[in-house]
């Protein structure tokens, strides 16, 4: 009851939610899947403000790329049984779309080795052999062993996850080490991947468990839903099966009277993939000397430099960019081939969205860069690089008199004064001497 109310509230709130990169979505729905079976997911997207366009993967219209320009902001691929795709949505062209900033949401197939499954390897996801779906005999339930309730845990994109368990049916995947992967939903610890759910396959799994290593497709090390953040800012979402998005699973009850969390989970995960949530951008970057406001043409070594950055986050409810001061661990690097200075860039109190720091330029001259390189799982990667020259002091930029040299200054000056005094006394004495000789002569 409470979750129903929550779901309704969530729906109501998200009516105005929009993506930061555009609202046009292309859904590649294969003909064997009925659109009506996914109405909750698709209607949820439409209510959020997206324009959905449906197309079969084998059709060629509407084109995804035309004249080298991406026609849609997001692409959803629900094609688990399609072996051949049309020319413009082959995996290679999907990668091209990614580099143009289009977000992808892909569902894997558990029956066959499709092109989408082979694309997953490019994203550092290791898939089990074809025809080995995820199987779990716990908890006791009346669904087949391949339909599994998964308890979601807190992760990078859903830090507080109080959702009820999620029904899942499909294949798991293993993660290679790739820092761009964002694990979202992991398999339950008692599940494993096997090619049949009867106990006749148990020996193979037992042997693999003994050996360990690559043969063991079991446990919570396997992932079911994962995100990927390539360079360029687009986001990709990999789901182990397409049934997770279906109406049937959204309305299936987990325990008596408690609906599954599929609808809400799928909505949250699509919101992340379509760049609604956890989206940041650097609005502006400023740098100048202390007590100045304009950036100088060049800095001098050992100058005191003030660096500032303004960062906004996208608020999907108001679909506006608002200043965001919540980044606690951003760093600034002052780099010439290697970072000479690497310091924290904290938020400035009193100015929302403004981050600033003051530091002393190093003692080396050269061409330096102010570099912000902020990569956190789930958040947009922030990159900024500003090139400034740092020159050594001009000939009149050095201190005029060195305090270590005062004895020498005193010595030279005293010699000169002594010389002047000596000459004065000498000439005065000469007067007296000549007078003496004169008087002597006179006498």
């Amino acid at each position: 009851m409470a979750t129903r109310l929550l779901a309704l509230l969530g729906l109501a709130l998200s009516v105005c939610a929009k993506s930061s990169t555009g609202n046009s979505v292309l859904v590649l729905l294969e003909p064997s899947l009925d659109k009506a079976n996914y109405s909750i997911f698709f209607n949820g997207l439409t209510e959020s403000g997206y324009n959905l366009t449906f197309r079969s993967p084998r059709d060629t219209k509407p084109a995804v790329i035309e004249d080298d320009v991406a026609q849609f902001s997001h692409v959803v691929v629900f094609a688990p049984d399609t072996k051949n795709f049309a020319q413009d949505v082959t995996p290679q062209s999907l990668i091209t779309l990614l580099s143009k900033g289009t977000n992808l949401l892909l569902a894997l197939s558990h029956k066959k080795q499709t092109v989408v499954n082979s694309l997953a390897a490019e994203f550092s996801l290791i898939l089990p052999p074809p025809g080995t779906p995820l199987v779990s005999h716990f908890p006791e339930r009346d669904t087949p062993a391949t339909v599994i309730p998964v308890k979601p845990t807190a992760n990078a994109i859903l830090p507080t996850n109080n959702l009820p368990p999620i029904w899942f049916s499909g294949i798991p995947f293993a993660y290679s080490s790739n820092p761009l992967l964002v694990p979202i939903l992991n398999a339950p610890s008692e599940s494993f991947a096997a090619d049949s759910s009867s106990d006749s396959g148990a020996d193979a799994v037992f042997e693999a468990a003994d050996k360990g290593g690559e043969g063991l497709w079991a446990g919570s090390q396997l992932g079911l839903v994962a995100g990927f953040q390539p360079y360029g800012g687009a986001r990709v979402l990999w789901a182990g099966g397409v049934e997770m998005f279906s109406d049937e699973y959204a309305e299936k009850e987990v325990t008596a009277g408690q609906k599954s969390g599929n609808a809400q989970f799928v909505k949250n995960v699509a919101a992340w993939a379509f760049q609604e949530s956890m989206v940041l951008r650097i609005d502006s970057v400023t740098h100048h000397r202390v007590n100045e406001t304009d950036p100088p043409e060049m800095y001098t070594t050992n100058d005191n430099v003030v660096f500032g950055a303004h960062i906004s986050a996208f608020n999907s409810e108001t679909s506006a960019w608002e200043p965001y001061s919540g980044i606690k661990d951003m760093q600034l690097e002052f780099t010439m081939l290697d970072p000479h200075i690497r310091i924290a860039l904290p938020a400035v109190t009193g100015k929302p969205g403004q981050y600033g720091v003051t530091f002393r330029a190093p003692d080396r001259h050269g061409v330096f860069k102010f570099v912000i390189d902020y990569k956190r799982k789930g958040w947009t990667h922030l990159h900024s690089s500003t090139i400034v020259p740092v020159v050594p002091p001009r000939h009149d930029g050095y201190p005029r008199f060195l305090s270590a040299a005062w004895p020498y200054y005193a010595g030279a000056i005293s010699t000169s004064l002594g010389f002047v005094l000596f000459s004065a006394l000498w000439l005065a004495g000469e007067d007296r001497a000549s007078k003496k000789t004169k008087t002597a002569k006179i006498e």
Partner: protein
Amino acid sequence: MPSSKSTSAKQKSAANAASATTHQAQQQVAQTSNAVQTLLKAYNETTSSRLKLIDTFLVFLMLSGVMQFAYCVLVTNFPFNAFLAGFSSCVGQFVLTASLRSQVNPENGAVFKEVSPERAFADFVLGSIVLHFFVYNFLG
């Protein structure tokens, strides 16, 4: 009893020897101090006031040079150009003043026939001005 006598005799001879050596040392000290005093007395009486003026200037320059050198060796030679400028200012001025003294000294009149004292002083002034020009340029 005899042992005490011999020891006392020994002590006496030792005391005698000690007193003899101290007397010798005292005599030597007295002799050197006498020598220094006679030297100073002779210097005071024989040199003219002009030469004494030159001599005081020379002593002042020497002290200044020694102090700069001591600072350089003991504390730091950091602005080395400054050290060279200051030290060579003292040394150069010393050389010029010493040459003035030898040219102006009436006892050397036979050696410096064509150089009158005024010409010597003019040379000294000219050389000093050039020296100070270089010193202030190098001082930094």
